[in-house]
């Protein structure tokens, strides 16, 4: 056998393990036990997948609600009477609507006047205390356009309504009165007078308090019920680019003498807040995901401890080949971390898939928050590191003489 001369090394070196080699070693360690690695990664995948799905589904729902709100318009503003600093109730001046109508960037406006003296009954035979909590409001023909709502059946108050006792029902009022359509000559008892029902509105999403009202025209209300000239609410659409500016000027415009007695609100804000609340992940579901994750982490600890016991001779060999205790513990930490990180990535795919299925069946937009894309693998990796601490410490404590045992 030809034996080239070898010159023994003279230097005394330190034991080193470059990071790339560390992860290569860890990957090789995992790939020799593929099925076991896959099963223990699955535990983490299910936990992370559940969490991603919860976050994804609620984000999709939220995105859907927000797009519905956007369709309704976020430029609707409401002006209502408020209180002065001294706590006195202030009515809106009768000039308020005309003043607001003259503002710049106001696209459409309508006032609503409460008719406090009138109750609505299906017939006069209904006992007078069973009002059904239906209010009566006088308003103009522009209400449906300003509120972004259409009639479900019939038509809204038009020019003729100013002369005749005609009424339009809000969606909820119609339900209480058990009226579903306006075919034929349908009458209700409104303030002891027969009113003809000419239309029923769809639900008004931007201000659902309006749904329980019955609407009559302002001239009829003034003539029959002698209501005052002070509006109870004014609704207006601002130019979308000037909502903030218009909103700020509304109070002094509506009531220049007592602007502090005027409330201005933006109904879409409340809806957006509600959408955001609906978009919040259900704590219970997240908790379940967390439990799955915990079980997965324990599974990894378990499998890594078994692995350490099985690989005693490999660990002994590595120690004999010059691995420090730290190298051994890092190897097992890296294996555990990679295992769980693979589980995290798989879980992300599972969760995104579940969200996709949910979103497509509900016809909602598919949304998985960007942070989940980063958080899922990182969370897996960190869980793996934590789960690996104990097995790695055990591996490092094994004696280097293990390799000498046969």
């Amino acid at each position, binding site marked *: 056998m030809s034996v080239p001369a070898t010159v023994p090394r003279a230097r005394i070196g330190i034991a080193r393990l470059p990071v790339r080699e560390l992860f290569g070693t860890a990957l090789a360690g995992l*790939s020799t036990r593929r099925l076991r690695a896959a099963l223990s990664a699955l535990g983490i995948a299910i936990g992370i997948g559940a969490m991603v799905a919860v976050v994804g589904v609620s984000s999709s729902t939220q995105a859907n609600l927000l797009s519905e709100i956007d369709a309704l318009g976020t430029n609707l503003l409401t002006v209502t009477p408020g209180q002065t600093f001294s706590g006195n109730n202030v009515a809106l001046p009768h000039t308020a609507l005309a003043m607001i109508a003259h503002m710049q960037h106001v696209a459409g406006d309508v006032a609503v006047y409460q008719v406090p003296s009138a109750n609505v009954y299906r017939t006069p035979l209904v006992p007078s205390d069973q009002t059904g909590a239906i209010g009566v409001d006088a308003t103009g023909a522009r209400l449906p356009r300003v509120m972004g709502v259409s009639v479900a059946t019939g038509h809204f108050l038009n020019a003729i309504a100013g002369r005749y006792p005609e009424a339009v029902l809000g969606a909820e009022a119609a339900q209480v009165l058990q009226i579903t359509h306006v075919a034929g000559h349908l009458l209700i008892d409104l303030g002891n007078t027969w009113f003809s029902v000419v239309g029923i509105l769809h639900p008004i999403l931007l201000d659902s308090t309006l749904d329980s009202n019955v609407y009559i025209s302002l001239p009829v209300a003034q003539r029959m019920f002698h209501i005052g000239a002070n509006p109870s609410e004014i609704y207006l659409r601002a130019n979308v680019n000037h909502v903030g500016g218009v909103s700020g000027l509304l109070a002094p415009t509506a009531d220049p003498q007592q602007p502090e007695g005027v409330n201005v609100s933006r109904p879409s804000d409340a809806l957006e807040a509600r959408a955001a609340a609906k978009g919040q992940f259900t704590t219970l579901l997240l908790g379940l995901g967390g439990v799955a994750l915990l079980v997965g982490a324990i599974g990894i600890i378990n499998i890594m401890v078994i692995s350490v016991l099985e690989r005693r001779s490999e660990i002994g060999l590595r120690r004999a080949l*010059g691995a420090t205790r730290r190298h051994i513990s890092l190897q097992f930490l890296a294996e555990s971390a990679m295992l769980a990180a693979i589980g995290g990535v798989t879980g992300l795919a599972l969760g995104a898939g579940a969200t996709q299925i949910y979103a497509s069946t509900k016809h909602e937009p598919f949304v998985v928050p960007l942070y989940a894309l980063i958080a899922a693998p990182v969370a897996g990796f960190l869980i793996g590191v934590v789960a690996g601490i104990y097995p790695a410490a055990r591996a490092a404590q094994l004696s280097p003489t293990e390799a000498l045992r046969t």
Partner: protein
Amino acid sequence: MNANDTALALRDVVKEYPGGVAALRGVSIEIGRGEQVAVVGPSGSGKTTMLAIMGTLERASSGEVRVRGRDVAAASDADLAGLRAHEIGFVFQAFHLQDTMTAIDNVALGMLYTGDPLKLRREAAREALERVGLGPRLHFKPKQLSGGERQRVAIARAIAKRPMIILADEPTGNLDSASGAEVTRLLHGLADDGATLGLITHDETVAAGFPRRLQMHDGEIVADVSA
């Protein structure tokens, strides 16, 4: 003997295990650079313990151990690991090859903890495998090799980093006599390059080939014979 010429020095080394079992009861020995020493003795006489202490796999309970002049007792775990990574090559009775790795990767693993880059380690591994006559078997996995060939891979792993000291624990114990003779011949040839060789054996014919033989009994060296 000059300290620079001493590869291994043990003085009054005692190794006791928990429970009071003494595996070594005061062993003193010096092994010079390039020396080839066979250790013989019955089972339980302390051969493997002495080898583990020489190879810094274990620390002595008392006494002094110097490996190439370095005091083992004073060295940290990482220091000793560095010593093993660069200067000591082990050959085991059970080979301890990684079944999933090819011959060349098993040999390259032997240099993993030197911190040398993979390319360099594989080059050294190829060279070492050629030296042990396994040039044509570089990419075979252990299961595809015979017992003798496996032990030759293990020897290549021990020598690839060109250690100063090679320690072998019953390297022929699992081999038939022909393979055993081949492995022994190989070890002699390698040590001729200047590395110190310590070898434990049961086999009198293997021991007879060594210029120096230590006879152990009950944790003591009872005979130190130089031919």
